[in-house]
């Protein structure tokens, strides 16, 4: 469903992605981890064209992301994205946050969008907060709204860019629970995270990156038990105490 073919990307002289190749099948949950600055966020930002790349090809559902004739907006509307800093729109109520994309991008009418939005809001357990503004919600609640916003667009796949890194520890689980449910329902997911518990529980595969390269791409059993590079080994030792 999502295929990276030899992706390389530079910021000026600095190479952030170095010849990255990977394939994510429909329904797979792939966790991307690695030290900071290793290019993992950049890698998932290339999937929906938010980060342009200079070399290689990415195909999402058969559509080439790098092709200048691709309608990027249309492609993005089919890929959900959840950000580290939530990025809810602070000038809109929760329900407006969830309906605006459906109305402006998918052309749904307001009632349909609202109904669907309320359904997803209920699913993340925040129906009672539908008319509040994001600034009044906790970080964990905001991130759950952000997930509902992405889901309401009926995405083919979901990208999570360190979804729990900006949260207080006691709020991490409420977000992870929503993500676990989603994974178990068969959503295709690429998740950049350091939450190894999440990876153990639901990941099909783990991609380990270092200095812009994909160092490991293996099943979670392989990653957590047997075959492991020295670099991945030392990374894991540092983050699991």
């Amino acid at each position, binding site marked *: 469903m999502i295929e990276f073919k030899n992706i390389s990307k530079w910021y000026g002289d600095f190479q952030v992605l170095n010849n990255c190749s990977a394939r994510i099948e429909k329904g797979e949950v792939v966790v991307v981890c690695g030290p900071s600055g290793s290019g993992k966020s950049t890698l998932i930002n290339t999937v929906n064209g*938010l980060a342009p790349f200079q070399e290689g090809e990415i195909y999402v559902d058969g559509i080439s992301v790098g092709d200048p004739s691709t309608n990027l907006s*249309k492609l993005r*509307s089919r*890929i959900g*994205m959840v950000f580290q800093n939530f990025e809810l*729109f602070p*000038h809109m109520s929760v329900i407006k946050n969830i309906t605006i994309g459906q109305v402006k991008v998918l052309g749904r009418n307001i009632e349909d969008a609202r109904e669907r939005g309320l359904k997803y809001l209920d699913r993340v357990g925040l129906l009672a907060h539908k008319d509040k503004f994001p600034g009044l919600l906790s970080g964990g609640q905001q991130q759950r709204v952000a997930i509902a916003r992405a889901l309401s667009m009926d995405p083919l796949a979901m990208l999570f860019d360190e979804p729990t890194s900006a949260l207080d520890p006691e709020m991490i689980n409420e977000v992870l629970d929503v993500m676990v449910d989603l994974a178990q329902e068969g959503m295709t997911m690429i998740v950049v995270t350091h939450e190894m518990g999440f990876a153990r529980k639901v990941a099909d595969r783990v991609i380990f990156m270092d200095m812009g390269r994909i160092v490991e791409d293996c099943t979670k059993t392989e990653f957590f038990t047997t075959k492991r590079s020295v670099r991945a080994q030392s990374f894991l030792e540092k983050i699991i105490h």
Partner: protein
Amino acid sequence: MFGNFDFDVIQRSWVYLFTTGMAFTLKLTVLAMAGGILLGTLLAVMRLSSIRMIPAAAATYVNVIRAIPLVLVIFWFYFLVPYIGAWIIGSDQPIKVGAFMSSLITFTMFEAAYYCEIMRAGIQSIPRGQISAGLALGMTNSQTMINIILPQAFRNMLPVLLTQSIILFQDVSLVYVLSITDFVGAASKVAQRDGRMVEMYIFVAVVYFLMSFGLSLLVRRREKNTTVTS
């Protein structure tokens, strides 16, 4: 000390001063403010555009306007607009514009340069992640700008925009160079007719002070409110 002054002139003329003079001043201020903010926002978006030449064109406009005294712009526009208009529609005769339209166009274009810089700062104050979030939902660049970025930029900059508009309110008095009967124009007509210059101009100053100061107090209150809720 005020023994020789006759403040009765105010009592005799205030209805005229406000219904004719101040009405014109407020009408011009409000319309030029609306037009200026609209044009200024457009210029701000142009200055931040990544399309070649567009930012340079908008920057040139802003820098030229801000480097010329307002009185000159008012003067030049009053005489030039009829000819520019004629040139645009291809007429041989200068078109009839009238002092009000001419000054409205002038103030809109002049103030737009200042509103542009305010809106530009406002747009730049919005975290880049908001743009990513809009784009990630599948919005186009302009949908993201209109629905996500501009409303937040406008809300953040509202106090500054209003402060600039108070300056505009005072600047409107410069239309006296076109012999227009704005508040100052009306007052000077009465002052010259009755020979009561000092009294009239003191009165005009007091009215401008009260209105501008009152408005800026309102802005400050509004500023407090926005910082509390966001």
